[in-house]
């Protein structure tokens, strides 16, 4: 099946350098794939796509109307495999990172020791778009700010793992992570036989437990998932998770704040809510306290939260820690709060706010990736080596006008995994988003969502930019 497959110059996760030198952990899968053959693989691939459509695993972009096109997230059938040994290290690294970030959030909204000790400049914190001064002096339930996060990891040319981004607000994709496995089991059961793939189906149970634990005032909490509604591109995920957990999926207008509590509007009157897994950004959560023009949120919700009468996951204000500039300080946070060395490295990051970094970035734009610190989804980005002179010039001006808003990183050759493009196998770039749950205990999903740049030669894996996804297997004894 792989006879015409040519690994790229980057780290190929199936093969060491050519198709005759498969990585040891891949050998059993490769033989199952060979038995299947390319034709059957393609046929089953179509069946998998139909299954996703039937399940309604679709998204539509925010700007399309009622009759806008709905698409499934392109699904690639060749699983990405991670060895158990690698995984143990990654798991530790993720837990370490989240622990430090939670301590940072608690510190920054309370005693601000890290600022006073001169580790992070105050101006960088207070100028961040994720900074929420409303949260100063607040302690969330269990003293944890990020119950649910999804961090982006990549492997470089040598196969070393790095953290690319911290997503600490409403990270999405977990439904695809679960759904991909379901589809693989349904359509490609033979690929599983004879090996142990770490199961992932417990995610909804852990998520529910994590949310329940936030309601420290009751043993029978009423939990809901707050969605912006069917026009949100992650709506499929919202309804999927609510259904998997057996909790209610609600929209802002289903809720009302009254006498310091939050209530659900039901056919038998108002019912109190204890925990809200909110999938609405801070800005839109509460028109009374944040953006006045939001019609997605609930007026007064922040006040009820601060009064301790409802729990919100994640707490408002966590966006300060996934500012792409604050990202560059995480290794220092780990040292500062935990007195440990960072287990999964950051990617080298230049902070345009600093004159020296800025000068370097402006001189080397054609070699760098520049990112806007507050944007997600692959928007507001410049990929130097793939850009025209005028695009580079345009970005140089943006940086000069608002240096605080930009960071730059060297262009990384993301690792590749064989994937189906137009019926043939190509090495496509991938990243990985594991999900971390933190209630009383913490739990890391084995593997995560592998996003794959299904356009030949593309480095951008985001779904909003034409990327797709793969099932991810953690295997080994």
């Amino acid at each position, binding site marked *: 099946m792989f006879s015409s497959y040519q690994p790229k110059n980057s780290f190929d996760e199936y093969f060491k350098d050519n198709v005759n030198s498969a990585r040891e952990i891949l050998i059993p899968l490769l033989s199952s794939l060979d038995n299947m053959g390319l034709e059957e693989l393609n046929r089953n691939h179509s069946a998998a796509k139909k299954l996703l*459509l039937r399940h309604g695993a679709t998204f539509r972009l925010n700007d399309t109307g009622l009759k806008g096109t709905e698409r499934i997230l392109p699904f690639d059938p060749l699983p990405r495999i991670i060895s158990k040994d690698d995984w143990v290290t990654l798991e530790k690294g993720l837990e370490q990172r989240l622990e430090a970030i939670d301590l940072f959030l608690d510190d920054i909204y309370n005693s601000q020791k890290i600022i006073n000790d001169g580790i992070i400049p105050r101006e960088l914190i207070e100028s961040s778009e994720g900074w929420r001064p409303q949260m100063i002096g607040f302690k969330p339930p269990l003293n944890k700010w990020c119950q649910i996060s999804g961090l982006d990891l990549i492997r470089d040319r040598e196969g070393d793992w790095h953290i690319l981004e911290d997503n600490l607000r409403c990270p999405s994709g977990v439904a695809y992570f679960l759904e991909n496995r379901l589809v693989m089991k349904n359509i490609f059961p033979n690929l599983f036989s004879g090996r142990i793939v770490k199961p992932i189906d417990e995610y909804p149970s852990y998520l529910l437990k994590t949310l329940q634990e936030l309601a420290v005032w009751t043993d029978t909490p009423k939990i809901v998932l707050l969605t912006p509604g069917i026009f949100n591109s992650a709506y499929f995920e919202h309804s999927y998770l609510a259904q998997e957990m057996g909790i209610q999926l*609600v929209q802002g207008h289903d809720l009302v704040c009254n006498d310091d509590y939050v209530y659900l509007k039901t*056919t038998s009157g108002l019912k109190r809510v204890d925990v809200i897994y909110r999938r609405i950004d801070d800005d839109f959560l509460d028109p009374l306290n944040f953006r006045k023009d939001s019609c997605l949120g609930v007026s007064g919700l922040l006040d009820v939260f601060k009064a301790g009468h409802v729990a919100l996951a994640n707490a408002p204000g966590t966006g300060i820690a996934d500012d792409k500039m604050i990202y560059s300080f995480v290794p220092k946070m780990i040292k500062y709060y935990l007195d440990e060395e960072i287990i999964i490295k950051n990617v080298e990051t230049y902070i345009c706010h600093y004159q020296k970094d800025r000068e370097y970035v402006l001189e080397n734009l054609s070699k760098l990736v520049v990112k806007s610190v507050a944007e997600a989804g692959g928007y507001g980005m410049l990929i130097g080596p793939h850009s025209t002179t005028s695009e580079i010039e345009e970005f140089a001006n943006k940086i000069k006008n608002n240096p605080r808003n930009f960071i730059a990183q060297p262009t990384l050759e993301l690792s590749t995994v064989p994937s189906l493009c137009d019926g043939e196998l190509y090495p496509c770039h991938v990243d990985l988003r594991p999900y971390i749950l933190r209630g009383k205990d913490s739990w890391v999903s084995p593997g995560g969502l592998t996003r794959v740049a299904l356009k030949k030669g593309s480095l951008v894996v985001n779904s909003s930019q034409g990327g797709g996804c793969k099932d991810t297997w953690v295997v080994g004894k």
Partner: protein
Amino acid sequence: MLLSRVAESLYWINRYLERAENISRFVEVSEAMSLDCPPGSAEPWLPLIDASSDRESFDKRFPEKKPDDVINFLIRDRLNPNSIISCIQMARENARQIRDVMTTEMWEQINILYWNMQEGEAIWNKPRQEQLSEIRRECQLFYGITDATLSKDLAWRFSILGRLIERADKTSRILDVKYYLLLPSLDELGGVLDELQWIALLRSAGAYQMFRKAVQNSIKPNSVAKFLLLDPIFPRSVRYCLDGISNTLKTIDTSPSTENPSELECMRGLLQAKWSYIRIEDIINHGLHEAIDSLQMDLNKLNVLIQEKYFIN
């Protein structure tokens, strides 16, 4: 406990699917009937548009009023909010809003139906009668799946409520429209018209076989009207639906006041009583059309009262 918004969506999903199903019945039977019609006899098409009260918008857009215009308007016209394709689209939009409440099987059924109705799907290459019976089967499959997989809680009750209200309305409309079509002048009331057409009417309402079982006699207009309006056990008769509506509302309302019943309480009780005890002769004597008209107004009123009590708060 059920969210008001969710109750409303369940109610409307079922109304829309029931509507789609009924339209498919109307078109299928009218098409079959038109093949049996001698030239110059009653024209079966435009009354179908009347049956859904969409005459005005139809006339504006299709001044030629060709049979194909009617059929497309009723089946595939996205600009007609009451076409089958629009009803199914709206049902799915509502279903998407409340996927977490429906069972996976229910959601998948409605989702498959929606995708099957999109352009380029195999269904449109089939003969029209096949298309229509497939659509009807898919809608009925949804009811079956609902009844077989959803707990019999409030969510289920609001589903039933929507289904029955729409069904009572549509059965009465088909009778109203066809009755006058088949009896062009009131003088002929009680006379014998082509039996084939009465059979077609019964088929429109999905009632032919059950009518035959219940009334072992030749097919007379009055006995057809009686069966469709007043039969106590035929599931598409107005009376049966009103019984179901009343009983369902009774189980939804957990604290009814017997001394001072709410407007909704009164309405459901009066409607049920009226259609349980009225005689077909009285209906015919006072005018069938008038009786059906007032039924439809009552159903609209009921809809508003349900809306006010359960969906807005």
